[in-house]
């Protein structure tokens, strides 16, 4: 067995949304073609009238070299649609879900899966430079000549291009080691403007197109972590005014309390207590299902560490409701699947035989996540 190539991912999703599953699936064509002219598609899975439990949105294939993420999404979609159509359960390693639980997911939630957000980058990574991370935005007049190899070269890191503290030099402390770059050659280049990239706009478009989405997971590798909001600084639950959109705190973000001597600027990002509790609870639910599948123990923690981030999908999805209350609150995660392996390339894309149990364990985690979301009300 091998990783799915770009065409195979698209075909697999089209088949899952085909006539056999037409009663409970919808193939969604994204409006923004990629730089190389590819059209992206997502799938919505739901049976019955308006969903009672809101929606979940799973995203894969943002970083090109993390080959397993679209394969995880496709596996999840195929298992869920096959099981619902046939009235059967799902087993992934040592974790099983009953036919009734499958029905609960499909009849309660809108399940949105966008498996391959950056097909240009994936194709380049799978055919030319396996360490490639970014999209394939072409070089513009006046851009510097970039070195090649090791994933370096022109292009934008899609997961630094979202409208969340995108202008990090103005928003963060000058001494914060933000893992975002203004250099077009670097792996974490934020792009020439906020949401400048078609891949980024497609991800956001789905949030607008399915306004009942309340939960979001962006699937990445590696490190066996389940990360919840926020990624720019430590979380705090006491002061709603200390937040990402308050200009009074510009220039103060990004220094964590764990620094020696603490954070001299005393900035932390606000998260309501109820949200934080739900984030941790949902993260633990995924962790337990992943462990039950093949015994791997993922760590549930806040996304922030010594190297804070800006412009990421999970913080963007969650931030929208703080800026515009008419947009639903979307509790968000990033899963970093897989452990560190003997070489760095194999850490990002293990041999496929080693990827199979990871696909199964993360699929188990996603199914358990859906079940938990279907039981939650009030968001």
């Amino acid at each position, binding site marked *: 067995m*091998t*990783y799915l190539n770009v065409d195979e991912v698209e075909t697999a999703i089209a088949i899952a949304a085909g006539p056999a599953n037409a009663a409970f699936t919808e193939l969604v064509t994204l409006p923004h073609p990629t730089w190389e002219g590819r059209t992206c598609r997502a799938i919505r899975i739901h049976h019955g009238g308006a969903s009672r439990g809101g929606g979940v949105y799973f995203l894969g294939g943002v970083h090109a070299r993390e080959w397993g993420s679209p394969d995880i999404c496709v596996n999840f979609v195929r298992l869920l649609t096959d099981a619902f159509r046939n009235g059967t359960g799902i087993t992934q390693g040592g974790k099983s879900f009953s036919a009734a639980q499958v029905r609960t997911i499909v009849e309660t939630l809108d399940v949105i899966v966008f498996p391959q957000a950056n097909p240009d980058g994936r194709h380049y990574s799978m055919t030319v430079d*396996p*360490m490639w991370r970014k999209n394939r935005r072409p070089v513009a007049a006046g851009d510097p000549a970039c070195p090649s190899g*090791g*994933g370096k070269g022109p292009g934008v890191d899609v997961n630094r291009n979202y409208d969340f503290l995108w202008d990090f030099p103005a928003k963060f402390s000058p001494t914060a080691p933000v893992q975002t770059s203004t250099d077009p050659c670097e792996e974490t280049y934020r792009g020439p403007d906020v949401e400048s990239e078609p891949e980024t706009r497609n991800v956001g478009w789905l949030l607008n197109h399915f306004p009942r989405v309340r939960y979001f997971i962006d699937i990445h590798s590696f490190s066996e972590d389940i990360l919840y909001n926020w990624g720019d600084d430590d979380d705090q639950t006491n002061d709603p005014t200390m937040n990402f959109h308050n200009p009074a705190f510009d220039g103060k973000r990004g220094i964590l309390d*764990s620094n020696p001597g603490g954070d001299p600027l005393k900035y932390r990002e606000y998260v309501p207590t109820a949200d934080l509790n739900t984030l941790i609870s949902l993260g633990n639910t995924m962790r337990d299902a992943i462990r039950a599948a093949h015994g791997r123990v993922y760590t549930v923690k806040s996304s922030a560490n010594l190297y804070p981030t800006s412009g990421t999908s999970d913080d963007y999805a969650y931030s929208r409701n703080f800026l515009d209350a008419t947009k639903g609150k979307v509790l968000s995660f990033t899963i970093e699947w897989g452990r560190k392996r003997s070489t*760095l390339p*194999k850490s990002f894309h293990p041999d*496929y035989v080693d990827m199979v149990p990871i696909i199964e364990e993360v699929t188990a985690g996603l199914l358990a996540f859906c079940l938990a979301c279907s039981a939650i009300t009030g968001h």
Partner: protein
Amino acid sequence: MPNYHVTIYGPDEKAMADLVRKHRVTVVRQTLDAHDEGYTVTAIADQATINRLETAGYRVERHEDVDEAAKESLSEVGQGNRFYDQPGGGR
């Protein structure tokens, strides 16, 4: 110039933060780890960067040439379209 997978050792969080804000190293942020004697993080660096970091006082462990090692992965990618003959697959 080859790019290497490296493990960088630093004595404290300031040194690890300086990797990004001062030395402009591309670290794999989720690999930051604390040890009794300090911190480590995984990164990709060429030999000139490795030399520069060692001069600045970091210990750098050089592993594989990532571009060479990564070529092996290309055989793990599907060729053609395995779904083409399935209903709805396009044939």
